[in-house]
């Protein structure tokens, strides 16, 4: 059901919670009884490094990805909540037209040859603030993450980065990306 935040798997989940808590790889959503989301570890497992496109976490439903992963996301019975696409308007590159040129399915858990790559992990520190009441800066690049609410609001949002003011739609009027570590120097070119 489009636009609703009733999380899928609820019947199954309630069954699980009755005995041993949420299913493996998921945790409950605080304040939303019966709702689950993936753990931070699971999130990391789906990415080669923080910033890499996640692999597709479900089987191939033979649908256009954006039918479910639209700008709001939607709940899919027996599957879970399809998070919104964070790619709102990556100008010039039609980023939302061909999801599967970056996101791929996993047909197997096997590896061809073991690999020692240790990728950048998600930085759980927050953006810098001028003072405790000032809005934090963006701790990551905004490119391909134009739809802030995809990650910062709604059932798919991780608690640690969930906004407490989703009613304000223009995030970037207060939260700005850091493009340089340098400070202003008069006369510098």
């Amino acid at each position, binding site marked *: 059901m489009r636009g609703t935040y009733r999380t899928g798997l609820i019947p199954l989940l309630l069954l699980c919670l009755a005995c041993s808590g949420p299913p493996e790889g998921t945790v409950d959503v605080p304040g939303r009884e019966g709702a689950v989301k993936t753990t931070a570890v699971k999130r990391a497992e789906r990415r080669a490094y923080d910033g890499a496109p996640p692999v597709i976490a479900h089987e191939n439903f033979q649908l256009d990805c954006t039918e479910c992963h639209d700008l709001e996301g939607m709940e899919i019975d027996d599957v879970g909540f399809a998070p919104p696409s964070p790619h709102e308007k990556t100008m010039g590159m039609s980023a939302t037209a*061909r999801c599967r040129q970056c996101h791929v399915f996993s047909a197997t858990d096997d590896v061809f040859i073991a690999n020692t790559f240790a990728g950048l992990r998600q930085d759980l520190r927050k953006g810098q603030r001028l003072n405790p009441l000032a809005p934090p800066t963006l701790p990551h690049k905004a490119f391909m993450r134009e739809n802030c609410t995809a990650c910062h609001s709604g059932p798919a949002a991780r608690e640690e980065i969930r906004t407490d003011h989703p009613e304000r739609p223009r995030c970037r009027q207060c939260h700005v990306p850091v493009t340089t570590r340098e400070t202003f120097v008069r006369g510098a070119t």
Partner: protein
Amino acid sequence: MKRRDFLKILAATPGVAAFSCSDQEDAERIAAQRQATSDADLTWTKAPCRYCGTGCGVEVGAKDGRVMAVRGDEASPVNRGLLCVKGYHLPAFLYGEDRLLYPQLRDGDGWKRISWDEALDLVAAKYQETLDQHGPEAVAIYGSGQWTVFDGYAASKWFRGGMRSNNVEPNARLCMASAVTGFMTQFQSDEPMGCYEDFEVGDDFIMWGNNMAEMHPVLFSRILETKRNKPGTRIIDLATRRTPTSDYADMYVEFTPGSDLALANGIMHLLLRSGKVDRSFVAENVVFKRGIEDLDQIGYGCYGENAERYTFKDKPRDSSFAELEAFLADYTPAKVSEISGVPEGQIRALADIYGDSGRGTVSLWCMGVNQHTRGTWMNNLITDLHLLTGKISRPGANPFSLTGQPSACGTVREVGTLAHRLPADMVVMKEAHRAKAEEIWGLPAGTIPPKPGYHTMDMFRAFMRGEVKTMWVQTTNPWVTIPNLHRIDRKPGDGRFVVVSDIYPTPTTEIADLILPAAAWVEREGVFGNTERRTQHWHKAVEPPGEAKEDAWQIVEVAKRMGMEHLFPWPEDDWHEPMYEEYRSFTLGLGKDVASYAQLEQTRGMLWPVVDGKETRYRYAAGHDPYVKKAEGVHFYKAKGYGEKAAVWLRPYHPPAEVPDDEYPYWLCTGRILEHWHTGSMTRRVAQLHQAEPGAYVEINRADASELGVKSGDRVRVVSRRGNVELPARVDGRGKPPRGSVFVPFFDEGRLINRVTLDAMDNISKEPDYKKCAVRIERA
């Protein structure tokens, strides 16, 4: 990070109370693993992607000597921050557990580790011994379009100027040699006139046998964005099977394999009939040429008396517009439709598109046209369509060949590592060109031999005959990629010596006598040149593992051991820039001027010719190309032999070398897929890419599968006159071949489809045809 430090961070984090207990533990565990490293803690450098010829810019993030992440480079005019799935997973290809770390010498059935000094001495001794006993035709080096400019330049200079041998070849012979001969025969200068900006300015994009959505996904994204922003933009997919590209096409045109020659001629026939030729453009800028057209004289390169060495040489002669009219008279829509299977209405629609002077037309092609027994002809015919309509050297109106390797253009075509080429479009057959190279290289006149070396197909046959005794293979995997692999089955101990430099074990290292560990991508400094003439530089970002060394260094060290140190007179710790600037001196003043080293370091690459520090987006175009002195229009100034005009070639339809029959009733086409690059030696070691497509398969049409009693996942055997391979069937996968046709990707070294393919080749480029041979399907 200490637990209390992490907890401090959490405590300072608004909303932390919202963590669930178990999630907080997870978050803590993750943060502790990497000490909460952020983007800002990495050192970021720019580099082009390691894989295809698009040349996407990436930012490489490294810390403590390891690459930890990449980002699409938003400052790159190529990709504007976007990458494909291979590009996003670049870092992991460096860290497969089986990286080659030390030189290894064959020792019976195994290997023994030796020092670099021992290895380099051995290579030098083997080459010297071969030179002394058998002469310069018995030595060879085989590289690729993945050679950096440094690697290719070092190899070419060492071979031609040091060992006096032209047996320098790249795997690009298997890849885009037909595009080289196409451009050379028409403009007497290689490489496209347009650039990626064509993808925003053009109106109609005609893909000739080109699955751009998978092979050049970022460029395809640019076209899709144009389609979104500019209603009326059209994509026309001319293909022999439906691919992900077809899903976005406004018109899908399916033709019988090999009949594209007839189709292009049929379009030209209609252009002439309907008066849509730009006669004033043609009169001012075009000459007409014909070559040998007799099928019996040309053959297919590998049969009968030509089985071991194929040496066809075309005999060009002048032709005319009147001759073209007569030549095309036969290519009526009805006849072309009969040959190609394309409905007459679609042929007419294509002629309308090319003939519409109000719309910009961009033709795109890659392996479907190049890996073709008449690949040069097909290149000629596509460009003919643009020359006849005047849709060339204009923003949004160009013939645009795409390349599959990161420096197929920069190294193979521009540095000149094909057996007959020198830098900047020069060739060894011309005395003046040899003299210029000898002058720049400070060598006595007559050093460079005038006879071209073995082209790739001949090189490997000469190796199997024992005429090539010592061969060095770098940055490529020929024991997976050569068609009809049976012809090069090799067991060490045959009196020949094969050195292989690579980063991982492959079927090619398995047949080697000596393996040298190579530094990969950002483990070294490099320069690549991409499809749109953009030269791009990167600095070394991390140290290579073990004792791995860059390929150019390996070549230079062997040359020095052979007494050829005069070829590389630069300081051991600072040779990249002077080597590049020496190479650059070949290009200046010729319309091939590559950017200076300093410019490359500071920019996201520059499009040659670069004159007065400015790049050129459209070659031969007034107002764009500084070599064009006209106030408007075009000037094909490189074609001195044609009176500085471009050549329209008359090229007939010839049938493919092998067609399906009762015994082998299916067409076989081979190629790449999105997730794996070439032989998969890099991409298969990346978990996400391997797990997406863990092995090769055979795509079968649903009706054929039904007839065969085969369903997806069933094991079948693909059998040709040359060999067979067992594969799982796939019905209605990402590609959908028409009835009587199958497709197999070639990335899987465990399921070698090149044991099945045919080694027929183009008569002019000597590029083999991997797209058309006859097979049967058996249930395994």
